[in-house]
């Protein structure tokens, strides 16, 4: 049986690192270290001796890491492996997900590919989660501003709630703008005028 691969994670975001760590453990890897936004990468890599390093592309230390491969770890050309050069589809997927991986020893691409796949999937998952969170935040903000605009109309024009909402909707449709955008204008105007 092959020994478990020793993986090191370098990420700017702790939550995402945890997400990747659990995925890699499920995939049968040993996670030897999780570095969050640190800059002493060099000493960590030499003390932890990982087989594979998974690194967040937003982490500026990628250039340092690559140079370490060239000089101290390998001293050969080309010494850095971005998994498998011929595997351009997975490289593209990795770049778009914002993750990169480096192989320290002469491991075969077959052994490393599953790690990259886990990392890509977890990065994408994290992106989706963050987008959903952003959407939820902006939905909440939009609902609040529509409520405020409705309140302004009710107070200034003595309208009932549903009547105020219908007027808002009609005005937005007539002007071909979003309800929330119209509501923001009304709130802003009211702040100036009142």
């Amino acid at each position, binding site marked *: 049986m092959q020994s478990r691969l020793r993986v090191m994670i370098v990420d700017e975001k702790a939550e995402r690192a945890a997400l990747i760590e659990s995925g890699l453990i499920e995939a049968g890897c040993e996670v030897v270290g999780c570095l969050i936004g640190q800059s002493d990468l060099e000493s960590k890599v030499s003390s932890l001796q990982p087989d594979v390093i998974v690194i967040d592309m937003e982490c500026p230390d990628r250039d340092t890491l690559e140079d370490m491969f060239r000089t101290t770890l390998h001293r050969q050309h080309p010494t850095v492996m971005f998994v498998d050069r011929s595997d351009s589809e997975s490289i*593209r997927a990795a770049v778009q997900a914002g993750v990169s991986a480096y192989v320290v020893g002469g491991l075969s691409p077959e052994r490393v590919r599953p790690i990259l796949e886990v990392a890509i999937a977890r990065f994408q998952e994290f992106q989706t989660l963050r987008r959903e969170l952003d959407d939820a935040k902006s939905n909440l903000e939009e609902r609040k501003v529509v409520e405020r605009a409705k309140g302004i109309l009710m107070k200034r024009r003595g309208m009932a709630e549903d009547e105020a909402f219908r007027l808002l909707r009609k005005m937005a449709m007539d002007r071909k703008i979003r309800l929330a955008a119209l509501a923001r204008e009304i709130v802003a105007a009211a702040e100036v005028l009142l």
Partner: protein
Amino acid sequence: MKPLRVGFIPLSDCAVLAVAQEKGFFRRHEIEVTLSREVSWANVRDKVATGDLDAAQMLAGMPLAATAGIDPFAEPMVTGLSLGLNGNAITVSTSLWARMQEADADSVMRRPASAVALRRVIDDDRRQRRPMLRFAMVYPFSTHNYELRYWLAAAGIDPDNDVRLSVVPPIRMVEMLGRVAVDGFCVGEPWSSLAVSRGLGRIVATKYDIWNNSPEKVLAVKRRFAEQNPEVHRALLRAVLDAARWADLPENRGEVARILAAEAYIGVPEPVLAATLDGRVVLARDEAPVSIPDFHVFHRYGANVPWISHALWLLVQMLRWGQLTSAPNLMKLARSVYRVDLYRAAALELGVSAPDADLKSEGVHGGPWSLPGTAGPVEMGPDLFFDGREFHPTELASYLMSLQGNLPQRSFEALLEANS
């Protein structure tokens, strides 16, 4: 067409791209561009290779290394425009500076300070069995790496064995110097000035001192992109060239500093940026600035021409330091990446005079000179090396002879044969 995505790294010499966006040069030349701030050169390389970026600011050696296949995940690249000349500096920690002064008070006061004093410090450390000094640069194929090595080697310091040389991203340099994780570095502005303004280091040599008006960053695209989108590419070059002309004028440098100070670009205090952009370089805190009017050159002196001679010099450095171990025909490689023809076409449309020549002897002009061009003479600046060496691109074989000891004999012979 969807907007072009163009990558940049937060450095003073992203100025031309920032200006092209903020002063409407892209719009004027009818292209829509989204600028993307990148955190590492590896990201720039990978994103251009995958097509996530259409074009990017790159270190002058990067498209050459990528095309030669010596950078990982490398795709053939081309550049039709240089983004400027000079702009870097070598800075040492204040404590190392004190030791250099003690070791050789005369040579350190010369400008550029020679590394002879540094060699004495290194010799002393070796005798006392102290750990090696650590120096940092920003990328293996960076001009910074080659300048630092050139400066060290000129004083007899072996950059691979007498110091520990490693890569540190520009934004981490100042912090690393602050906690003595490095003793010195070579980096683009504003990071040396920032280290100086915090009293952490002293500038010992500027890139201009080491090689007057030397190549620094280029605007690069994948070769395939240039082939498939010739008109879009030309419009991009035209817009950036137009912006470079604007950014180069002394009266606009204040606004350049203001634009770059924004968080979206560099996000460091405006005065730190403004000093070197105005040609005032503060070498050490509490010292009066020295005047280096050509510290940043964005357009004059044929600065935007992707000179074949610059490409050749960079390739020779790659050979010298063992990065390029194959034996390519250097002239052919240089010409396939540095595309003066693309520059000329864009310049012609803009009414900018492009030199008729696409290479020049380096290290031979000590003052202003001029070259015949497509629309009148092109005024050129000095191009001396600090050690007085010359580089004649048409006599490549004889320059390569000086590298004999740096390459395995068989590679050296193959190299000579490929370039004779």
